[in-house]
Every structure is written in C-alpha cells, then in structure tokens.
C-alpha cells in the first residue's frame, strides 16, 4: 500500500507529487463517506489528536475537528490567542505537557513561521501544520487544488491567479508550491506593496492589473486582506483597494471566458469580491469548504497509518 513520504505535514514544499496524488485519492474516498447517511468511519479509534490553536481560527479548526471526529479519533482542543511564549512557557513545554497525556498527533496553528518545523524536531508526535505565520497552510492549498481538480478535471496545465494580500498570506505561498508541483501555471496579482519583492524568483508571474490577470487565468483565488497582520497601511483605503482589486459581476461578465472563482474564507463581501460573484455559479467557495473536511480526513488518516507502523 502506498504511503506518504513524510511523517508530518509541515508544508507543501516538503511533499512530492505522489504524496499529493495519494492524498487526493484518499480524499475521494472520504468525500464519498461524508456524503453517506452515516458520515463516520472507525479508522482512527485508537488515535488521539490535539488541536492546538495559538491563533484565532474558526473554519480551519472546525474543519479539522470534524475530520478527526468522522475518523473516530479522540480529540482534545487547546486554544489560546496568545502565543505560549508570552505566558512564560515555551512551545516545546506546552506541547510536551499535552503529549504526556498520550496524544499521537498534533494539529497546530501558530503565529510564527516555522513553528511546526521547529516542533517536529523537538517533540515525539506527528505534526500537522494548520497555518504558521506567513509560511504555509498546507491543508488549505491541498483542498484548493482538490477543488480545482474536481471542477476542471485536472490541475496540470491550468492557469491560476492568486489575488490580494500575497505578502502576509500563508495560503498564497502553499498554493504556489502545490500548484507548481502539479504542473499549473501561477500568477499573483495585487498592489505592489502586498507582493513580496522576490516572489518572481519562485517562478510565478506578477501582475498588478486585475483585468489582465483575470483574462489570463482559468481560476482566480481571491484572498482576504489581512489587516490584522499589517503594522502599517499598505494601501490608502479599502475603497481604493476594491476599486483596483475587487471582483464584481460586471468585471467577471466582461471577461473573454468563464473563470472559476475561489476564496479560502472568511470573505469580506464587497471588498475583494462582491456578493453576486461569491454566490454565482462560477464560484466554488462552498465546495472548497466541503472538500476541506475530506482532504483533512485524508491527511490525518495517511499520517496516522504511519504512526501505527
């Protein structure tokens, strides 16, 4: 039976193409499961998972918890908007305290880039990175690719533009790695102040004109502006941002082709996309959410099967 090449999911850049293929095939199975009348399988009855969220999260946390419960894992939750460091306890100590209660797997969201990588070197548990600062958010990128595959048949050869705050976005970075690994072409689009200066060295196109970007792409992944991560203003006003980088129905209808609209949520309606775009048939935003559970089930299942060996 095939297995993942890694013992943790710390980022897309640590995966290979076969890993993604395996995750998707496994997710296909779980997607079928969660659409049954009995949405649960007993696969992980002997596994205990701790969800450690050192940063606010609603949807990712719910999605992971649901995925874990549908696999019949035991679940404990720990949320703290403050990082452990501020409370005087180190991250390693916090996690080791929880692990000493016999926990097998840790799902962690953390404000600092590399927190998952760091933890994986110092504690004895399988780690899933649920977002670490502006570094990676691998399950989001996996579910995004999975949703593109579902909608368009394949990721390979597709043109995907990621629009918005690229600078502060772990979703953008993980998506770049995931899409490139599967043979898609990637463009980023946004105000120059929110695009990392050296991102073109990753082999992505950079565009500051939204219309040009949308005319180029098959899929547009609209990101939220992460005001909470900005220490200064990167643009003068939300109004002006929307004028340049918001997608509305008129713009969408004026394009040469019908593109697919994605959004990792939460949506700021009227800012990066208008309601009629978010709710249009071109939008697969809610499919992404459903696929998120299936993809996370697949990741947890595949990593747990490595623990059991």
């Amino acid at each position, binding site marked *: 039976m095939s297995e993942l090449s890694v013992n943790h999911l710390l980022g897309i*850049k640590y995966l290979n193409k076969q890993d993604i293929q395996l995750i998707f095939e496994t997710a296909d199975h779980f997607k079928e499961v969660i659409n049954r009348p009995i949405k649960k399988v007993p696969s992980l009855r002997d596994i205990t998972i701790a969800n450690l969220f050192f940063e606010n999260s609603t949807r990712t946390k719910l999605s992971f918890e649901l995925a874990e419960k549908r696999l019949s894992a035991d679940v404990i939750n720990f949320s703290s908007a403050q*990082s452990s*460091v501020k409370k005087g306890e*180190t*991250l*390693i100590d916090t996690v080791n305290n929880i692990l000493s209660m016999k926990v097998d797997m840790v799902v962690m969201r*953390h*404000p*600092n*880039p*590399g*927190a998952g*990588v*760091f933890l994986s070197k*110092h504690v004895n548990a399988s780690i899933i990175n649920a977002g*670490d*600062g*502006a*570094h*990676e958010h691998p399950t989001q990128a996996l579910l995004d690719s999975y949703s593109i595959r579902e909608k368009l048949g394949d990721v390979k050869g597709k043109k995907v533009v990621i629009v918005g705050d690229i600078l502060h976005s*772990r979703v953008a*970075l993980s998506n770049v790695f995931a899409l490139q690994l599967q043979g898609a072409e990637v463009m980023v689009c946004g105000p120059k102040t929110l695009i*990392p*200066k*050296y*991102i073109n*060295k*990753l082999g992505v196109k950079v565009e500051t004109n939204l219309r040009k970007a949308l005319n180029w792409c098959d899929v547009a992944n609209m990101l939220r502006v992460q005001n909470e991560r900005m*220490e200064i203003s990167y643009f003068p006003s939300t109004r002006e941002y929307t004028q340049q980088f918001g997608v509305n129905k008129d713009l969408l209808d004026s394009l040469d082709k019908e593109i697919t609209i994605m959004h990792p949520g939460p949506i700021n309606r009227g800012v990066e996309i208008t309601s009629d775009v978010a709710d249009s048939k071109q939008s697969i935003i809610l499919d992404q959410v459903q696929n998120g559970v299936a993809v996370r089930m697949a990741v947890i299942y595949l990593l747990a099967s490595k623990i059991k060996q």
Partner: protein
Amino acid sequence: MNILIKSATIIDSKSEFHNTTQDILIENGVITKISSSIKNPKNYKEVKRDNLHISQGWFDSSVSFGEPGYEERETIKNGLKTAAYSGYTAVAVNANTNPVIDSNSDITFLNSKASNNAVSLFPIGALTVGSKGEDLAELFDMNTAGAVAFYDYKKPISNPNLMKIALQYASNFDGLVCSFPQENKISGNGVMNENITSTKLGLKGIPALAEELQVARDLFLLEYTGGKLHIPTISTATSVTLIKEAKKKKLDVTCSVAIHNLYFTDDVLTDFNTNFKVLPPLRTQTDIEALIEGVKDGTIDMVTTDHNPIDIEDKKIEFDHASYGTIGLESALGALQNLFTIKKTIEVLTKGKTRFGIESSSIAVGNRADISLFDPDSKYTFSKADIVSRSKNAIFENETLKGKAYGIIANNKAVLNS
C-alpha cells in the same frame, strides 16, 4: 613568566623574522632572544607544538560577554578564557549588558574585572544613555576611564541629528563613534535577509537597502562633521562600494565585517535553524564575494567574530522569538583560513588595533611578548567539544575548518591548551 618557544614559524610582516622558523625566548614577559636554536640552560618551560606558528596578538573589535546582567550567557572570566584559547590577546567588549555600560564607573568595573588577565579587555562605552538612542552618554568621562569607542551595540541611532552631534562632540577628544548600519523603519520586523529564502519561509525580510541607507546617511554626516566613524559589521555589496568611495574622499571611516557574513548565505536558513539568526543577517553570494574582495583590497579594515553568546532558552524557540547572535571566537582562525591566505588572515586579525587606539607589539627582541600561537593548517569538524564559551550557539558547528589556535602569551602570562 619565562618561556622558550621552540620551532615556531613567525608570521609578522613587521618582524625581521617574518616567514622564518625560530626559537623565541621570553623572560619576564619580554622577548629576549630570537634565534634558530636557543638552548634552555635555566630550564624554562618549553612550548613545542605541531606545525607551530606565531604572530602578533589578535584583536577582536566586537565581543559580547553579558556580564554584568547576563551572566547566564557568559561571564567576563570565562569570556576572556575563551578569547585566550582562541588565540586572541585583546578584545573590545560591547556595552550590551544590563545595566548598559554607559558611565565612567561602568568602564572602571569592566577594567577591574578583567585586570591581571592574559587577555586585555578594552571596554566600549554606550554612545547614548542606556543605549536608548535619545541622549548622549558621558563620552569624555568614559574615554578618561579607558573606553576605546562608543557604540549602542546593534541599536541604530535613528535620529540623524543625534549622530551628527555625537560625531562632532567625540571629535573634541578624538573619540571613535560606532554606528550600527541599519535603518530601523526599513528593516521593520524583519528577521533575516529579504530574498527568495525569506519569501519561501514566510519570514519577514530585512532588505539590503536598510543597511545601505544607514551607511550612506552616516557617511554624509561624517563628511559634514569630521571626526572618526567606525561602521561595525557591514553585510552588503553596496555598503562596500559606499565605504570605498568615502575612503577615496579621505573621510576618516573604518568598517568591519563579521566572519560568518563572509561565509554563509541566507540559504542555510531553510530549516529555521536559529543558530543562523544573526544581525546583520546572512546575505547572498554576491554580497559575500564583494565583502571578501573588500577585505582583500583593504576597504574593510578588520574582521570580527561579533562573538555573542546566547543561552539556549533564547535560541531553542520559534525563529521569530530567538535572539540574534552567534559565538565565534573559537572558530575564527579555522573559518578565516578557509577564506584567505595565512598572511591575510593574520593581517585582518591584528590590523584593527590601531583604530581602537591599542598598542601593537611586533615579534622582536626587546618587545613585550604579545603573541598568538596556532597551527594554520589542521583540518577538523568544528563541534561542541571545541566550544569554551558558556553558551553553545555556534554558527560554525559541523563546519570543516582549517586552523586551530594553541593559545596566547601576553601580559606576562601564558594560556595554552595541551
């Protein structure tokens, strides 16, 4: 102290015995005889080592020990021992202590703590009170007590008018003002060099621009004020160019580079290893090449280890939270010998003294013995076993180095490893 050094190759371009192998007799701390073969009738202690080389004592212009206040990082006693075993006879010690060294009595404290040691400690006083960047510290008074320079360690003076006044004021008594080359608003919350690696890692970047703006600003100020400016630890190619041009204009400016900035690019950070978290950050191959060229052509006056012991609690944490800094004394020779010829290595290890007003003593009969002893060729993998420092944050851990110090003879004392 009386010692007979046997068969040592002398590397000292100021000495008539340069590049020759000699026996050296030292009596009461003074070199009394140099000859190809000296007998030992008085049964002095003999020093014989494999491939023994000696040079004038080495000097490091930027060393941090932590005491007072951060003794968990390093004490003055063990710090000086580290310097001695690493081949250094003189170190300029930064004011990044708690409290900050910013008064005459603080300087006197350091001097008394380090007295009677083989290694000479030269205190650097803070430029501003508490290194807060607001008001000038009592520079003249500290100078009187023995401060060799004035520097708010790694803290840039954001206010250009304050830097202007500092340069003007210190020039009254020929004081050396140091300015950390970083424009803080541009560097922001950056924790590593801004480039492809920072982009991949999602870590905030410090653009080379942050350094270059500050260097350019300080050179403009120096041109206006006169006085003596030292820019510690530059890290970018453009900084080298700017300083080269300033020297052509005959501005009284010197600069240093940290050895690790000559050695590693930011690629090594891929794994979020906090031992590589240093300030200024590790840059690119282009920068390294320009810096090495700058050392070779003399634009960069001296190299420093920028030795900064950090205890494990401040390193074994998330990258964003980890402290900047690496120890470097122990690995200095071994790293430099991988980059430069022996002649250049010794030149950059000794040349900085003049700038900091520290006397040099070449290897000649009648001079006081101020000597570093080493094997420039031995190859080894640098490991924790090579660390004398209290803290083990070594950027060179696991690197293959070339050259190892045996110790020093200075201040009428010998500190030599077996």
